[in-house]
């Protein structure tokens, strides 16, 4: 099936700084979200919302 899309006439190649900043943001977001999940879990266990079976 043929797709209809606008041709990217105003495309600008990202600079090294932009790509570097994006990579760092992605890494920070991944670490942040992982830590947040661990943080939520431990807090829920500590608050008794998730029973501590150990």
């Amino acid at each position, binding site marked *: 099936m043929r797709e209809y899309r606008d041709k990217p006439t105003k495309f600008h*190649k990202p600079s090294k700084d932009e790509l570097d900043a994006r990579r760092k943001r992605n890494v920070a977001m991944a670490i942040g979200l992982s830590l947040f999940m661990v943080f939520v879990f431990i807090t829920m266990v500590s608050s008794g919302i998730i029973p501590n079976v150990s």
Partner: protein
Amino acid sequence: MRSNINNIDPKVTFNDVAFNTSGISLARPSDFFALMKPRVMSLVVFTAWAGLVLAPGSMPLWNAFASILCIAAGAGASGALNMWYDADIDAEMSRTKKRPIPQGKMRPRAALGFGVLVSLASVWMLYIASNLVAAALLAFTIFFYLVIYTIWLKRRTPQNIVIGGAAGAFPPMIGWAAVTGDISFNSVILFLLIFIWTPPHFWALALYKTIDYAKVGIPMMPNVKGPVSTRNQIMIYSLALFVIATIPMFSGLAGDLYAICSIPLNLAFVTLAFKVWRSQAGGIPNKNSETSLYAVKSGDRAARNLFAYSIVYLFAIFGVLAAEALLV
């Protein structure tokens, strides 16, 4: 007054800083951290911790740690939301022009999204870690700082920081509520300590940054009522702070250690405020008179000293209160 910065074209310059043409943001994780006003956050963390330590009762260590982290994140989120709304004036002021949005590293809407997300996460997490009262207080603090202070009062009245100061005064109350689940007389005293401390702290800064605030049309007290009225009010609030700071000695919140330490701390505060009151701080020097120029410069120095000391004062007062609660 507010420019339409949210609909800015990527190729249009924002105060001489061009946005990158590829559309990928240059913002690094450190820029998002800067959005959270880390220096303000440190004061929030410290006072919230003090409130938590001073509150009667106890809570699991992890929950206490999590609560402080949530209060800090909530404070940081309000900082980000403040930078989103104030992006236009931040670009014009020497004190704020190096913030990530005026520098063109990120769009205001990125700060808005970040602020909203962190606000929701921090309030929800505080509810899980402590209780509904603490979470509701944190939500109200974020609302107060963004809507009441930043959007409503800041650009409209010279009483902006007097009323808006309440937002900065809530953290010890939230810390207290995280432990007890209520608001009591002593937690209100902790609130009042910061609430009354805020006007002399910010007006001292405004006295020697008068031009900066005038440039962007923020009605700070020295710009609207003049330096004399501001200096008078600094003196009145400093004396009121002295009175408020003595209440913990009689309300059962503090004991001898606090009494010994707080009196000299308060005397020093009043002395520095008195120096500002007597000075020409914030005045306009007479260009033909060298004496007048030196008088204003010396007055500005006195205001600078009061501003710097006020930060030390708040850390010291809450530090002594917390130390006594931990030691005794």
